């Protein structure tokens, strides 16, 4: 546990989620979520399939809109402009700007197949941030080196293994220098022998003090790397706290039965 970065108790809030509900048609997917993530925290979210973990993550990145409640990123309300007690939807362009402060790593990688590894990583800085080309290439190469793929820079995604693709995807998310990195089950689509290399990269990032929110089924990893564990079921947060405590002595009956099955 020693190497894990622990944010100070008074570290400023990075994400604040207040009373968030989400409906898909008549299906009530998120049922009143309240959550606060401080800067530098590694928040791991566990829970059974269909509990709303991924949806919550996608709401923070505004890939899904929310039906009720508020989400603040670094104190800024996202998705809306609030004036005189009324909410106005933000235009798509404004949302795109807000999205730059969140990086997302997808379960199925979603690398751009027509671009090489280094082109995938530099696409955001080059086109969205308008970083000069030479600078973007230099930064992208650095990031690829950090995820251990310096020698694969000019490979296309189809030429890389699943684990390598996911590491490129992490580098791509990092390239935008987001305030928070969101991981949506980053190892669920990988062969068992490739899971380790991706977890190693995430573990390395966790030590640098980047704020992260990781939806995962890897309980061991959650205990080792996380410093804030959230257990979700049925669209609600049933229990949260320091991972070691929650996993060793869950208070909620649902958490107990879930952990008994997966441990």
């Amino acid at each position, binding site marked *: 546990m020693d190497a894990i970065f622990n944010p100070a108790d008074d570290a400023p809030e990075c994400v604040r989620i207040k009373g968030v509900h989400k409906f898909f048609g008549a299906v009530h997917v998120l049922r009143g979520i309240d959550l606060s993530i401080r800067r530098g925290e590694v928040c791991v979210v566990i829970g059974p399939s269909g509990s709303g973990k991924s949806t919550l993550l996608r709401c923070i990145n505004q890939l899904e809109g929310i039906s009720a409640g508020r989400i603040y990123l670094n104190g800024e309300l996202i998705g809306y402009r609030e004036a005189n007690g009324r909410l106005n939807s933000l235009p798509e*362009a404004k949302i795109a700007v807000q999205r730059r402060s969140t990086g997302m790593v997808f379960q199925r990688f979603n690398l*751009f197949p*027509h671009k090489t590894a280094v082109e995938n990583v530099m696409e955001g800085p080059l086109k969205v941030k308008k970083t000069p080309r030479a600078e973007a290439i230099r930064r992208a190469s650095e990031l690829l080196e950090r995820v251990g793929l310096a020698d694969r820079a000019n490979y296309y995604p189809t030429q890389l293994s699943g684990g390598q693709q996911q590491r490129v995807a992490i580098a791509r998310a990092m390239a935008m220098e987001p305030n928070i990195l969101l991981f949506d089950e980053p190892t669920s689509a990988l062969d068992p022998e490739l899971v380790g290399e991706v977890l190693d990269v995430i573990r390395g990032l966790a030590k640098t003090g980047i704020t992260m929110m990781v939806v995962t089924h890897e309980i061991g990893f959650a205990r080792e790397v996380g410093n804030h564990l959230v257990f979700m079921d049925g669209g609600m947060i049933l229990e949260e706290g320091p991972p070691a405590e929650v996993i060793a002595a869950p208070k909620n009956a649902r958490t107990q039965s879930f952990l008994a099955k997966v441990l």
Partner: protein
Amino acid sequence: MSFAGSDITGARGQPVKQGRSALQKTDPREFPNRIILNNPTPVPHPGRWIAVGLLCIAAMLVLWSLATNPNFHWDVVRSYLFDQQVLRGILWTLVITVMAMVVAIVAAVSLTFMRDSENPVLRFVSWLWVWLFRGTPVYTQLVFWGLLSVLYPRISVTVPFGPQLFSLETIDVFTPGVSAVLGLGFNEAAYLAEIFRAGFRSVDSGQKEAAKSIGMGKTMTMFRIILPQAMRMIIPPTGNETIGMLKTTSLVLAVPFAFDLTFATNTIANRLYLPIPLLIVSGLWYLAITSILMVGQHFLEQHFGKGVDVAAIHQE
């Protein structure tokens, strides 16, 4: 060359990279004493040889008749293949093909965006266009374009309840050439719009999400991420349509536009009372242009297949 333990060397003596992603390449001829390839006797296929024999005989008969049947008038074909009028016809055919395709592509891209728009009016207009232009014969449409000046002799733009901005004779704007290009282009747009739509749909929805997640807006996502991947699906059928368009230009007489290749060869044929050699002249030219277009299509496919179809080549 050793073949033991970790000391594995490849075909040309460089060390072979070990690991999941680098499959080991071995030339069996370099290990003659170790690997004896099975080399089984293939299953005999006498039917194939008989088929080849029959086809050869048929081909010889066709060639023989081509060479000896005087009704082909090969001397006429030779003397008119590079005739001034024929060459001018080719030029006009190419001009109309290219311009009609440009009109079609621009219109089809707009139709595709409209079809996927959140605005129901735009969606309906796009649907209506496809329904109308795909649902009537292109010949009918061309005649209609030609008769536009009968339908509306003058085109004028007027501010409602206000002054007239300008007014033109329809026949000055919709000349036969313009009518031919618009008629062919608008009709083609209906088909291309469906092809483009299929192409865009073929791109995984995760790509749009990934582009959004790095902060890209709608337009940039379309041009940097979706379109390049959709092109892989769009190009083969669009190549088909371009070749189709080249030949459909032979219908522009309906407008009537009277300078294209088919019209030129028909005119000469009527003058000489020899239709067959001039059909061969136009056929050879259409074939030649199609062949050139196919070469172009091949290179376009290679470009947009980057990372998917030609990844293996690129790795070298």
